[in-house]
């Protein structure tokens, strides 16, 4: 009976797992098919649009955005290409009209430069602090080693100085002669 319930529970869990997995797989397949079928109007237009942001949806690429604004912008890219402009000129037009934030990679100047530099600065501070603290620790360790060596050396020197003492030498010789 218990075995039956357990078996039932296991198969139920397995069924749910299979269902979730199949939902994931089928949605992935559908999205892959839709993406493959998505019309790419013009390679050059698409390539340029990939370098621009959608102006109304935050963080979205112009090339992949289906809004009316982005459709108009893509038409503008195509129209300018048809007029004989190259990619740089088209991008320059968009930057001049809508500002550098329209570019996927805005020039590293002003406020943008701070955004680019902040993580680098934080990393420099982090590794700088780690480096300084590690250097101090190693200095302290070598100082300890030096102290230990100096203490050991002093004992050895003490032995050496005793051996070199003429009185001690004389005493040792007399003891040897008597024996």
């Amino acid at each position, binding site marked *: 009976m218990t075995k039956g319930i357990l078996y039932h529970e296991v198969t139920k869990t397995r069924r749910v797992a299979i269902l979730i997995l199949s939902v994931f797989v089928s949605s992935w397949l559908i999205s892959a098919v839709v993406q493959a079928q998505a019309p790419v109007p013009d390679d050059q237009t698409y390539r340029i649009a990939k370098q621009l942001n959608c102006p109304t949806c935050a963080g979205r690429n112009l090339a992949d955005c289906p809004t009316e604004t982005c459709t108009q912008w893509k038409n503008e890219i195509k129209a300018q290409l048809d007029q004989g402009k190259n990619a740089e000129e088209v991008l320059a037009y968009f930057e001049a009209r809508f500002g550098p934030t329209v570019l996927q990679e805005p020039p590293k100047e002003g406020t943008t430069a701070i*955004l680019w530099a902040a993580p680098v*600065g934080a990393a420099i*501070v982090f590794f700088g*602090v780690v480096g300084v603290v590690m250097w101090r620790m190693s200095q302290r360790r070598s100082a300890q080693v030096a102290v230990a060596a100096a203490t050991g050396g002093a004992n050895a020197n003490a032995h050496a100085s005793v051996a070199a003492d003429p009185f001690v030498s004389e005493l040792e010789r007399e003891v040897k002669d008597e024996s």
Partner: protein
Amino acid sequence: MNPEGTLNASPATPAAPAKSNGKGKLLIVAGAVAAIAAVGVLFALAFSLVSQQGARPTAGSPAPDFSMALYPGYTGGLPEQIKLSDLRGRPVVMNFWASWCVECYKEADALEAVYRKYKDQGVVFLGVDYLDTEAPALAYLQQYNITYANGVDVQQKIAKAYRITGVPETFFIDKNGVVREVIIAPLSEAQLSASIDRLLNE
């Protein structure tokens, strides 16, 4: 059993955890310093952005000044390059719009109709084209037979100065350059007329 050996071994045993504690502390300190530095930079950045943008103009606050190039053929009797402060002495109805904005279509006819009704009383209508490319913008102006002044908001400088939240948005500015009303919605002829009448009766 050598007692000296025990003596020598005993300090070596606690040395290992002390060392790892030191490293852990070091990482915590370094991480904290880096995090504080990063947060400081972000705060400085946010502060500079906010100070650049200023406050959103509301009723009673001075209308931020700006210059704008008007579309050829859509100057409404004004020079091709206008400056808001040059229009002092005349009430200004400033409307942010875009050709891709569906809500803007709803008020386009009303704006033109009310402009024609009040233009002889010295009321200036200014259309500020937001995030738009030229061809569809001109097609829009042509479609709705717009005759009042319209220009492009280059790099969204005017939109940023007025801190708009979208389009359409309309600012009613009195003859002294003070914002009297802000409406964030498509306007009807009646609403527009009522707001302009208030400006004229001040």
